[in-house]
């Protein structure tokens, strides 16, 4: 590289290295620039706590959507977290290594399936089942929870496996030598040693569930109301943005960007929490 020289190369590389953080700042800047004035204008508390979402009448209360997002995310955690951790424990502690090496990438393939396909499966398979056996419209909190729970499995399993595998073998040997069974070793030693990584995997899964849009639009039914049972139709924050963005103008559009600001802040908090969990573990070692 005689043309630019070593110093020039270093500068160019540093510039590219700042691309990700610049992208993040740019995204934050423009979402906030569009959404924050609305929050000041309408009042954050009013915006979050009012249940009237009538954009034509100038009423922008997103409480039903906040409730919907919380319920659906909670449901996804109930479905996805135990199943994911169970899968991770089985694959890392019981399954033979070659089996794990085949199955882990297969499960990671679940993450590659487009979210619209999950949504479609929810509509075609899951919603009719719920409608026929449990009642309600089918497209519901329950359907969304199950679909999102499945969608977060790869995140939970993959990161949990990594943290369980990082537990030193000597911990397990020590426990087994004291006469503990493999299962006693797992739940008394391995899980405890790997818990911050497992926690991080669940938090990251939660971030995915809150942020998921297309699958939720398709399976949650999109009615703007506070759900009273898991069989009712709801509209999540993300769905509200995606459904109304195409025709929203003026204050209405600003309100959708303000919803984006709320989501952005929640996601950054969750990601930071996951990072602290992972880093805390690294520091203890």
């Amino acid at each position, binding site marked *: 590289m005689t043309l630019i020289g070593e110093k020039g190369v270093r500068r160019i590389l540093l510039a590219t290295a700042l*691309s990700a953080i610049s992208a993040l700042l740019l995204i934050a800047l423009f979402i906030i620039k569009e959404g924050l004035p609305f929050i000041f204008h309408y009042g954050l508390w009013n915006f979050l706590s009012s249940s009237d979402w009538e954009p034509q009448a100038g009423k922008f209360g997103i409480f039903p959507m906040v409730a919907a997002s919380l319920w659906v995310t909670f449901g996804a955690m109930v479905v996805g977290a135990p199943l994911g951790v169970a899968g991770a424990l089985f694959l890392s502690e019981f399954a033979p290594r070659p089996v794990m090496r085949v199955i882990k990438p297969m499960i990671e393939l679940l993450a590659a399936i487009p979210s619209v396909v999950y949504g479609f499966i929810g509509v075609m398979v899951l919603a009719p089942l719920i409608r026929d056996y449990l009642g309600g419209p089918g497209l519901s909190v329950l359907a969304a929870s199950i679909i999102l729970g499945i969608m977060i499995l790869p995140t939970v399993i993959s990161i949990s496996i990594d943290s369980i595998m990082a537990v030193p073998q000597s911990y397990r040997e020590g426990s087994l030598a004291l006469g503990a069974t493999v*299962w006693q070793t797992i739940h008394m030693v391995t899980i405890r040693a790997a818990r911050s990584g497992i926690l991080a995997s669940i938090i990251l899964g939660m971030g*995915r569930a809150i*942020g998921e849009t297309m699958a939720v639009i398709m399976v949650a039914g999109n009615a703007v109301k506070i759900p009273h049972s898991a069989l009712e139709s709801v509209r999540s924050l*993300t769905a509200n943005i995606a459904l109304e963005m195409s025709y929203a103008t003026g204050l209405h559009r600003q309100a959708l960007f303000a919803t984006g600001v709320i989501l952005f802040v929640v996601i*950054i908090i969750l990601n930071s929490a996951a*990072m602290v969990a992972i880093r805390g573990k690294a520091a203890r070692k």
Partner: protein
Amino acid sequence: MRIHPRYVQYGAVAILSGGTLLTLAVLVFIVVFVLEKGLPVLSLDFLLSSPQDMGRAGGIFPTLIGTIALPLLAILIATPLGIGTSIYLTEYTRENRVTRVIRFGTDCLAGIPSIIFGLFGFIFFVTILGMGWSILSGGLTLAFMILPTIIRTSEEAIKAVPKSYRDVSFSLGATRWQTVKRVILPNALPGILTGVMLGIGRSIGETAAVIFTAGSSLRLPTSIFDSTRTMAVHFYILAREGISNENAYGTAAALIIAVLLVNLTAYWLMHWFIAKRS
């Protein structure tokens, strides 16, 4: 009554393996369900003919072009940035405040939901920069989205190149950049390509970020300034507006096959890379 630990363990294994099997069954079910319903519709003619009547009849040719163009553009933009970042992080600096900030930014960017990318792309590329709904806007937005994937995988790949390779290169009098260019990058290439393939896979399946930036025009795009509709968006519109379940299944099958092929290639590359290393 106290249950013998051995039986507790049997129970635990049963539950854990059951959970794992359930997860695998779901994966297999999704793929088989879509392929079973979609493969009868899918044909070369379906892929290469134009849609008629909003997609009620005809094929998906313009969306195939959109599905190739958008990820391609995203990759062309994100790959140099991603590789540059990973080279800088691994070869040109030690862990310090700057690298921590870069890593934090990368991790956060990876967690941002696609709808936020869509909102951002819509306001920044489409509106403020005046690119309109176009392949360019969509490609740039997707590039932002897949950047973290490429950075992480490239970094892993570069770190996996043994230190002795660098030592030999330096001892022969090579500069840092010569070492990176002639020794490290060629050896890390399969690993880097894995990241690129994963990025392509994610772009192909993306909907929320694409629909607000590339639009949903069904016309065949002639330049990167034209709006386009990807297969994922087409599938979403067909399914959600109930235009044609049959064509929705066909499109879904094409989508799943594309995503699986890309991801399996990524996996195969990584496998090859690891085999070569050890």
